[in-house]
């Protein structure tokens, strides 16, 4: 690719469309978001190219008042994925597959998610690494990964990096990648053309959403510095059980909904604990995301779809 050399990628405007339930289309030009108003699903679907799905925070085993049937809502989400008119290329799961890292919880997740008949690329959440040697997660999802489970792969010219920021956490801190993983990231990106679209996915947000609740990754700055020269970087996270987005230069940060239970907006409740909402509102706060790249345009579209709109 010579885009980098002739400056085409720099001239290209990174646009990001997000269809967030309510159907508002946002376009970001030069870092300034513009609302283009309401759109319908047809416009969001128009994009062709690589489309993949993000599911997150399934919390198999969760049975508290905020959603006594987390299994049922995961099944609903998978049912909706199966019914999509265009089959996505694959899925990513941004962690908290289980609630307590139990064998039976991993089994339930596997059984339900595999019904979508899509390849799934996982990263762990803190709830998946509860057993001291993190054996259960690694046995199932660790093949071909480094350390506690980070790895990269390529699909349709897009470079995907799955990171682990929930292992060996230090008291008083937030999410953490650690020295070894940071060095691996630097190495992984070395020699790649700056015009390669990069998608990073990890459980805890890689930008500081709300430090009072630990919603951030303390050493993510270094990881993002290695990505500065790339024209298009998309960071997909979970953990906070709500849709949130931020654009900083060439980097778009986005968090997906959970399929299990909602969590409050930062600072809007005494703690980040599961949020109990009226029964008829629950499914409007749970859901999945679909991400599409149009080849050659360095444009991405993120569509967040609730279980019920």
């Amino acid at each position: 690719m010579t885009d980098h050399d002739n400056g085409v990628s720099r001239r290209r405007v990174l646009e990001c469309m997000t269809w967030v339930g309510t159907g508002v289309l946002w376009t970001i030009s030069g870092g300034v978001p513009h609302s283009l108003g309401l759109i319908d699903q047809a416009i969001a679907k128009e994009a062709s190219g690589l489309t993949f799905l993000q599911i997150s925070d399934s919390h198999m085993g969760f049975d508290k008042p905020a959603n006594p049937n987390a299994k049922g809502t995961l099944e609903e989400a998978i049912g909706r994925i199966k019914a999509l008119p265009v089959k996505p290329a694959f899925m990513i799961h941004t962690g908290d597959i289980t609630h307590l890292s139990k064998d039976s919880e991993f089994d339930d997740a596997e059984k339900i998610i595999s019904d979508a008949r899509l390849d799934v690329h996982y990263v762990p959440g803190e709830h998946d690494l509860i057993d001291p040697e993190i054996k259960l997660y690694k046995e199932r999802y660790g093949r071909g990964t480094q350390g506690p489970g980070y790895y990269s792969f390529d699909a349709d010219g897009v470079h995907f990096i799955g990171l682990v920021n929930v292992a060996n956490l230090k008291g008083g801190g937030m999410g953490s990648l650690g020295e070894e993983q940071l060095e691996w990231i630097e190495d992984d990106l070395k020699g790649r053309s700056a015009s390669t679209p990069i998608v990073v996915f990890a459980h805890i947000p890689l930008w500081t959403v709300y430090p009072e609740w630990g919603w951030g990754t303390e050493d993510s700055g270094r990881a993002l510095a290695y990505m500065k020269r790339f024209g298009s970087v998309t960071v997909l996270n979970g953990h906070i059980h709500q849709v949130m987005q931020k654009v900083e230069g060439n980097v778009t940060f986005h968090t997906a909904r959970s399929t299990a239970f909602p969590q409050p907006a930062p600072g809007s409740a005494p703690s980040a604990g599961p949020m109990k909402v009226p029964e008829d509102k629950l499914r409007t706060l749970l859901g999945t995301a679909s991400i599409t790249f149009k080849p050659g345009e360095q444009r991405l579209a993120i569509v967040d779809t609730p279980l019920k709109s």
Partner: protein
Amino acid sequence: MMTLRTLAIGAINLLVAVATAVGPVRAADTEVKIDNFTFNPQQITVKAGDTVIWVNHDDIPHAVVSQTQAFRSKALDTDDKFSFTFATLGTYPYFCALHPHMTGTIVVEASLSSPP
């Protein structure tokens, strides 16, 4: 004068110590509530030999982990408890392995009945 007074206080202390030792040695249990992603009280002082019991009142699991590897609980689901008996004097900072921004401290000081 000073010496006499010091001696007198020392004697009283000794009597109290003896009295304490004579009765059944009863170490106390102290509860730390885990509520709204906080340890409450965040810092407590106990006597050597006392037991601290952490009880998770949240709808989310937490794990109590010493910064100095002195103790480590399993993941505590809602209403689960973890207890640890502090035999050795010192300051024990700890945090939640799942939510490390949650921190607390146990200070263990000498009890009157413990050997000098």
